[in-house]
């Protein structure tokens, strides 16, 4: 590739990576525990 003559050398350190980060896949939410209704005491 023709880019002409070299002029100077520099160092570039990006603060954030220019590589796009893949969004983490969210783990499927666990269903809320089902509350089992307590048995009412049977009157004697």
């Amino acid at each position: 590739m023709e880019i002409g003559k070299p002029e100077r050398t520099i160092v570039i350190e990006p603060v954030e990576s220019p590589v796009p980060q893949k969004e983490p896949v969210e783990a499927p939410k666990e269903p809320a525990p089902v509350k089992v209704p307590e048995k009412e005491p049977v009157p004697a």
Partner: protein
Amino acid sequence: MSEKGSPHFVVPDSIEPVLGWKGWTLTGMCRLRSPSFVTAWIPGSPLKADCGQAVPCQETPGKRCRCGIYIAGSAYRAAGYGYILGKVYGWGKTVVHETGWRVEHAYPSELFVPATLLDSGALFRELQEYGVPVTALDDWDFRILTTPTATEAEWVLERMKKWTGKKR
């Protein structure tokens, strides 16, 4: 990226990566391929420059060597080096040239692909793996994108004059 406090830490001249243009072909696995080398660009990881000389440079891009990842300053200069065009970020050790850069690390930021190549949809899905926007261009769009600016046209004319002058 060098860690602050490590013996290899160098105070950077810039924290902004350069943004230029590059042309690619494709490997059999539909990965971007640098025009002059067999190097495939892997989605999700930056390409690191590698000096291909028998006695490789200690640091790439080298001062005396012409190694490094080449990035052009305009789409016009990158066109002709591959049928896929794209904007590309460059960083790390960087040699600034008259009309582009040679860099240590690079990753595409946007891809432009001839619409005819994207017809099947399979290539589009493969290119999306890079995680950057992929745009289909018809012939007309491609020509507009790669039209030289007045300054570039002047530069080419100057080069041609010098070249034809040398031949005489």
